[in-house]
């Protein structure tokens, strides 16, 4: 069931309707096609991970969504309209696309004052976002002296100035220490749980597996898959078994009709119960050194998808 609400921009949007929609986005830089016929949706209430190898077209796509790069063809809309048509875009979307997007001789606070003025946001909000990202103590220092993690936090503070309904972040975990990454993950989870939408790209697949609800995977500018993390990761777990006498173990598994793949000193198979494999080894008099169920990882799925797309 859809209900309507007033979006921070003053436009009326439907809860449940996509926050971001891309349709047939294509971008060519001369002879190079960076993004090709890319379509996807980002829904509110979710953290949507944007995955792809280096040069896959993630940053270009985000810039097209935000009106910074003009698509060769196709279109993107935010809360139902092109980004450039939003009345007060900072209250609709907060975005961080580069680690450094500030004058190095300007203090963090003054950088935010510049952005607040451009967006018509009261300066009182600056202290709130500085506190939110944990940068209050360094706010009056020149931003050029910030560490990588502090630069990320300053970028995020700028994105949060307008209290937006959507966050678009390009590799926000770069440069953050483990505490910072955990803070970011919890913040984005909270932000999405409040009914907002998050589109975040990252190379840290394990981090993405913990953070994201949905994933968009692209490669060579094309969509490879879009779906929930669970869907993309797959449900097929595998069993890994090893023995000091791995040749005997291989013969026993083969004799039992199991399709086991050799993986170094071990065998890996899917669709077999650990109890059955243990019984086979016991019956053959083979002592096992390892018997473990392995859940599919996002990394495995990602590599499989992107390598599949390249073939």
């Amino acid at each position, binding site marked *: 069931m859809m209900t309507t609400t007033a979006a921070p921009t003053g436009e009326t949007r439907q809860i449940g309707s996509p926050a971001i929609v891309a349709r047939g986005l294509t971008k060519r830089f001369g002879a190079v096609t960076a993004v090709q016929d890319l379509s996807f949706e980002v829904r509110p209430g979710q953290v949507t991970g944007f995955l792809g190898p280096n040069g896959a077209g993630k940053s270009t796509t985000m810039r097209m969504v935000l009106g910074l790069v003009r698509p060769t063809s196709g279109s993107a809309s935010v809360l139902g309209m092109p980004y450039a048509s939003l009345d007060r875009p900072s209250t609709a979307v907060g975005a961080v696309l580069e680690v450094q997007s500030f*004058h*190095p001789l300007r203090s963090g606070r003054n950088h935010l004052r*510049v952005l607040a*003025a*451009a967006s018509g946001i009261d300066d009182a909000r600056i202290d709130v976002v500085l506190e939110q990202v944990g940068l209050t103590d360094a706010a009056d220092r020149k931003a050029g002296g910030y560490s990588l993690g502090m630069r990320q936090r300053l970028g995020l503070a700028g994105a949060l100035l307008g209290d937006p309904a959507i966050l678009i972040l390009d590799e926000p975990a770069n440069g953050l220490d483990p505490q910072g990454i955990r803070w970011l993950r919890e913040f984005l989870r909270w932000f999405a749980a409040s009914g907002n939408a998050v589109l975040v790209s990252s190379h840290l697949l394990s981090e993405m597996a913990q953070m994201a609800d949905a994933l968009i995977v692209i490669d060579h500018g094309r969509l490879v898959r879009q779906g929930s993390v669970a869907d993309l990761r797959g449900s097929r777990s595998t069993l890994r078994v090893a023995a000091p006498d791995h040749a005997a173990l291989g013969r026993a598994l083969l004799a039992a009709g199991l399709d086991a793949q050799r993986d170094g000193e071990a065998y890996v198979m899917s669709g077999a119960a650990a109890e059955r494999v243990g019984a086979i080894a016991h019956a053959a008099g083979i002592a096992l050194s390892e018997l473990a169920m392995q859940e599919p990882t996002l990394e495995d799925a990602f590599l499989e998808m992107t390598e599949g797309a390249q073939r």
Partner: protein
Amino acid sequence: MKDQIRSEYRKLRTTRTIWGLLAGLVALSGLATWGILASTSLGVSAALTALPVVVPLVMVVPVFALVLGVRAYTDEARHGSIMPTLLARPDRRRVAGAKFVVVAAAGAALALAAIVVTLVISVVWLAVDGVAVTVAAGSLAVLLVKVAALGMLWSSIGLGVGLFVSHQVAAIAGSLVWLLVGENLVEVISAGVAKVLPVHAGTALLGISAGDAAPVAPLVGAGLLAAWAALSLGAGTRAFMRRDI
């Protein structure tokens, strides 16, 4: 537009660029004034607005105003702050318009600072030398307006160049080479063509001849310089609007 102008004003105020340019302009204007007064005999009386100390301003003001204008955009392109600027205000024409308002005002202020320093040093120097200085309020006001217009128009030309070229070093080096060398070369080839070019138009605006050829009238010079500023801003804004960031 008001919000964006406020933002551009804050950008200008919160780095050292404007203060560095102001210090350089004041220092150079003061040095030039001192040099001219030290090497010129002015007799027993002189009209303040007719003093030769005004002459160096036709080059000093354009150089600093041009750099101010170029940096208003290229600083943002260089440091990446153009991205949050455009995310906050995606209408690029408005962003360019707000930059124009602030840069033109700052260019005029820089130019006024230069002429004030020049005139104050002159008055003090001449008073010490016992030269009677006459000041006609009307001609002083006209001189101040002309110098302010010179700063405003050259900073606008600089902004247009910055928006068009985007790369800071290329924009500053290219425009300074034109300012200091380019027009002189054109003048060697054709004095008639050189008369309508920006440096010559600026000198004509102040009622000074830049070369052998007689300058155009000050109002014509102002019109020509304004046309160059409009052309530069138009081309720069068009390039800025089409550029992928």
